[in-house]
């Protein structure tokens, strides 16, 4: 590829010398500038939400809140934590997320391992069966009817099972097993009398801890953040996960209806408080993830890499 470089010896000319010596510092300044702007564009809205959640809603409405909270108040959070729907949403989400992650990760690990075994007869056929579903599926309506016919509507399983196994994740798992569990190891174990189950649980799984961590994390985030399946399959508000509760308040503005605003006389004030609650809800539902995620970053990076490059 070196031959493809046209500027091969060009900079040795005196004319180009200055330009090329300046090119890199200029490049650095411009790119660092762009990236800093991008960082501000990401951090500032989030920061604003946090300060707005503890500011006087009237001052927010007047556009007086920019860099620091104005007219500090905890009213939003107080109302928020008195709200049963939110708490119930969190509890439901915790349940769906933990059970869902357990189910998804177990299936992906077992099936991913089986698919990684080149000596399993029919492996290619099974692989094709999985891959077809990446490019074509029966659609939302048929899936809904299947879930309904199975009697899963309005159960936790409707939120968990229909999307439990992503083929993409299965491919990542398969690739991981292939590259991290050498065939020689298995042959040695077989000579020692270990069968496939034993080898999978005692040898292969312990070798794939990073994969397990990655899968667990991806699924925790995915289940925690999803709303659509819950919206389709659940009718009972008591079963709503957090994201659906958030949707009703943040997007559909049902705040004033569902929250106890009896003590506030004017409609405008109720609306102001409604806005404050929205800022608070975003903080409460998002900040925990944003705080723990930097510690988990390396796993996600690994996932992104494995998925794309293999």
């Amino acid at each position, binding site marked *: 590829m*070196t031959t493809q*470089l046209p500027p091969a010896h060009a*900079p040795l000319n005196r004319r180009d010398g200055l330009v*090329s010596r300046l*090119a890199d510092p200029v490049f*650095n300044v411009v*790119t*660092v500038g762009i990236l800093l702007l*991008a960082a501000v*564009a990401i*951090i500032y809205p989030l920061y*604003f939400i946090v300060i707005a959640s503890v500011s006087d*809603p009237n001052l927010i409405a007047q*556009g007086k809140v920019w860099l620091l909270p104005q007219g500090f108040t905890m009213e939003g959070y107080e109302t928020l934590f008195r709200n049963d729907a939110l708490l119930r949403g969190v509890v439901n989400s915790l349940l769906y997320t933990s059970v869902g992650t357990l*189910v998804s990760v177990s*299936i*992906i690990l077992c*099936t991913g391992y*089986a698919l990684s075994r080149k000596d*399993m007869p029919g492996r290619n056929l099974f692989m094709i069966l*999985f891959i077809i*579903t990446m*490019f*074509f*599926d*029966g*659609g*939302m*309506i*048929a899936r809904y*009817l*299947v879930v309904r016919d*199975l009697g*899963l509507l309005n159960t936790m399983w409707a939120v968990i099972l229909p*999307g439990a*196994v992503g083929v993409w994740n*299965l491919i990542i798992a398969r690739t991981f097993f292939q590259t991290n569990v050498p065939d020689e190891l298995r042959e040695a174990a077989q000579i020692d*009398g270990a069968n*496939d*189950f034993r080898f999978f*649980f005692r040898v292969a799984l312990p070798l794939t801890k990073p994969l397990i961590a990655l899968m667990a994390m991806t699924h925790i985030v995915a289940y*925690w*953040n999803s*709303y*659509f399946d819950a919206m389709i399959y659940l009718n009972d508000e008591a079963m709503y996960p957090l*994201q659906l509760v*958030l*949707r009703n308040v*943040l*997007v559909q503005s049902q705040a004033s209806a569902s929250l106890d605003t009896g003590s506030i006389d004017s409609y405008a004030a109720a609306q102001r408080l409604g806005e404050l609650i*929205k800022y608070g809800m*975003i903080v409460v*539902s*998002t900040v925990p993830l*944003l705080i723990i*995620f930097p510690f988990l970053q390396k796993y*996600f990076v690994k996932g992104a890499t494995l*998925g*794309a*490059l293999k």
Partner: protein
Amino acid sequence: MTSTSSLHSASTTTATTTSPPQPLPTPAGVAAAPPSPRKGASRLTLVLRSWQLYVLLAPGLIYLAIFKYWPMYGAQIAFRNYNPAAGFTGSPWVGLAHFERFINSFQFKDLLVNTLTINTVGLLVAFPVPIILALIVNQLPSERFKKFIQTVLYSPSFISVVVVVGMIFLLFSPSSGLVNHALTLFGGEPIFFMGNPEWFRPLYIGSDIWQNAGFSMIIYLAALTAIDPSLHEAAKMDGANKFRRIWHIDIPGILPVVTILFVLAIGNIFNLGFEKVYLMQTPLNLETSEIINTYVYKIGLQQAQFSYSAAIGLFNSVLNLILLITFNQVAKKANQASLW
């Protein structure tokens, strides 16, 4: 639920079979029988010998059968008048009637145009952003700054769609939103962003970049680390500046990954982001925000017109598949990477 229970049975079996002797077929016995080494027999032996692998495979296959292939089989209601009592196959056959009705309906053109516009414009605008970010982040001299930028750009991908859309509603609110305060501060007029069909696409695409560019950037950064550093060394010796090295080494180096991700993105063009589109819809911006999939949801699940909506959904899937195959073919012809 079936898949979970079979999962448990898989693990309990392991617990009981900790002692080596295998309860099933006799690999040694059959394989060692010398007289008739017929091919079929040895294949069967291999299958039988792998029974434990099939048990491990089973949960995934059961899932696949129930939640992927059964709905695929059920998609035939698009050609029938679905009646819950009669089920998928028992309902009367009507052929292409639902498709004709959709294509002749007055919504057809708008839906198709909206779906194509939001996704193609979105793809063209959003696709290059993470590539450019990765290329310049990769050249950063300071490792710590690199790490910092990566973390910041990547963090919004952990925020749920619901919250991102909630943030849009709050920050772009006409009366109390941050953006309109900034606009008026600089002498502009407040804009009712969420009530204006013209603003739907910019907001959708902009927030998509805000949320997802960082994550995609990581993929390209990983591809960049796979480039042989000696190429950069040699180019540096020859006096190539950073811009030239990006142009002649980095970009050709990640082109295969770019091609594959582009083809995949094209293949998803009819499906991407409809959960977010649905959230961003207001009665006032439906003119641009109603796309095929949101329409399918409304017609099918809210109005229970199962067959008609299944037909629209199927129409969508088929268009999608055609696009994917076409672009994969193009990528193959261009001698870049392809999916298959």
